């Protein structure tokens, strides 16, 4: 038997072992276990603030850790830092490219980052001595578009790219410290674990992977979706994560069970999901769809708990603040809205 044939057999055996191990611990379904749980009731959220200032579709947003400021990126080629309490614009940052796909806020509040079709992750210093905003680094190295970026701290950022890889960067030197390879399709999204030791990525190969940030290894791979995964988000306690896909479903994957626990879908819904967020407790899952609709799901029971903004489907991106007090949504009409 050739060596290649031997290796193929070994891989097949390992796959079977994984499948059997997963089946062995699959003693029940999440919906069965939560059948007796009270439903959350109908969720109806109200707009508390409208943020006006962008001139085109909002592509991405992220809250700052103070749950008050947030950054948004728009087709108008600007990054805007907002004070969501007063609705004031703190900074309006012009970008070199209008085609921005992601933006991020450093936990310290001192930096913002963004990237898109330029394949570059640009880092902006928000707290310069002169009081204005400056580009401090342009992290280039990816050979595909920058789909997502998330700060670990002021000196490290993780990125995902259309070149099928993710990378950890040293912002100071501008170099990639670690490259995470393994996906066979464009990586669309990433989410850092609460303890910052791992992150999960979702890609157009319909799989999501858990990576160890320090050693660059893929610790676990999750399958189940039948089409591109566009969004991923960690469950608040770090033991699970949810993905949103073009197959019109969101799925909850548990790290310890190493498999899918729940699927959030409905026969009436045949539109892909492109953004996901959890409420602070994790009981609610917010999902933004490609037709600009936004559904609120009961994470534990798998039922739909409400629809956000019923008319004029408007949600192009969304995010929940870390104190759990507000949901921000960006729209195709250039406005951002704060809800709770």
């Amino acid at each position, binding site marked *: 038997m050739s060596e290649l044939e031997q290796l193929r057999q070994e891989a097949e055996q390992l796959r079977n072992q994984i499948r059997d191990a997963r089946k062995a611990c699959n003693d029940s379904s999440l919906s069965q276990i939560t059948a007796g749980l009270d439903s959350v009731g109908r969720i109806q959220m109200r707009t508390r603030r409208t943020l006006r200032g962008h001139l*085109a579709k909002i592509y991405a947003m992220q809250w700052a850790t103070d749950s008050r400021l947030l950054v948004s990126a728009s087709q108008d080629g600007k990054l805007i830092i907002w004070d969501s309490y007063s609705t004031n614009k703190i*900074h309006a940052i012009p970008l070199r490219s209008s085609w921005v796909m992601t933006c991020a806020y450093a936990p310290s509040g001192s930096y913002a980052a963004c990237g898109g*079709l330029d394949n570059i992750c640009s880092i902006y210093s928000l707290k310069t001595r002169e009081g204005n905003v400056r580009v401090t680094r342009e992290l280039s190295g990816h050979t595909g578009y920058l789909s997502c970026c998330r700060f670990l701290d002021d000196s490290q950022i993780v990125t995902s790219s*259309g070149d099928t890889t993710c990378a950890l960067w040293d912002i100071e030197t501008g170099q990639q410290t670690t490259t995470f390879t393994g996906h066979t399709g464009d990586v669309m999204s990433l989410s850092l674990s609460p303890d910052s030791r791992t992150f999960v990525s979702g890609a157009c190969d319909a799989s999501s992977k858990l990576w160890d940030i320090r050693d660059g290894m893929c610790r676990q791979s999750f399958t189940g979706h039948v089409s591109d995964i566009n969004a991923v988000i960690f469950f608040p306690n770090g033991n699970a994560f949810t993905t949103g896909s073009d197959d019109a479903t969101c799925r909850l994957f548990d790290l310890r069970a190493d498999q899918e626990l729940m699927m959030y879908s409905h026969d009436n819904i045949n539109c892909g999901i492109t953004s996901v967020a959890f409420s602070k407790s994790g009981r609610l899952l917010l999902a933004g769809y490609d037709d600009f*609709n936004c559904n609120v799901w009961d994470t534990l029971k798998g039922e739909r708990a409400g*629809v956000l903004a019923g008319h004029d*489907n408007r949600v192009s991106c969304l995010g929940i603040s870390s104190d759990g007090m507000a949901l921000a949504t960006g729209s195709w009409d250039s406005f951002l809205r704060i809800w709770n």
Partner: protein
Amino acid sequence: MSGSPEIEELPATQTGPKGVIHDWRKFKLESEDHESIPSDKRELLRQMSNPKSSNDDSREKLNRKMSIQEYEMIQEEDERCLRKYRRQCMQEMHERLSFGPKFDAVFELDSGEAFLDVIEKEHHLTLVVVHIYDDGITGCDSLNNCLTCLAAEYSTVKFCRIRASATGAGERFSDDVLPALLVYKAGELLGNFMCITKHLNEEFFATDVENFLNEYGLLPEKDFAACPVEEENVDVE
């Protein structure tokens, strides 16, 4: 809210990174000078924009969203073309979503069947607002007047009203939950407000009801106000 003819006509991707790629392709095809892009490149953009057109169905191709030649086409763009394109994008969305039948008055429903009909059989883009009221209950008269005003201002929304006793489910709508406002679209309940007057002042007007519904994202924007023309002040070098 998906699977309807108009929504199916929408391009495959609108949001997220793929939405940006789609917007960029559309910009290159429609907004830039025809001379700046050779016809073979235009053909590539057209093919990549059409999700069903892959004649070469290898797994590799389906997992990659942009081709190498497309990356080479990315360059500095004319700001004027971009501005025009952005306005065009928003205008198209407004038109797409305000498509559908128009109304100008509040419809009185006289039975449970009429109620079900209006919920299930309206155009899938039409928002249906139903006021459940009864005589002698505080707030119902005022609310009816308010909705009459709003019906004239929001022509794409179908405002209706029905007496609790006519619904055939009178017991469900006891006096303490009236007036009730139910909001539907494409057969789905989007908003459910029992005793809506407790959210409003004792004396309320059409604008108060309008603001209330707007806060829940349940009314369309009245004017196309999303295109401010002045440039924002920037403080970045």
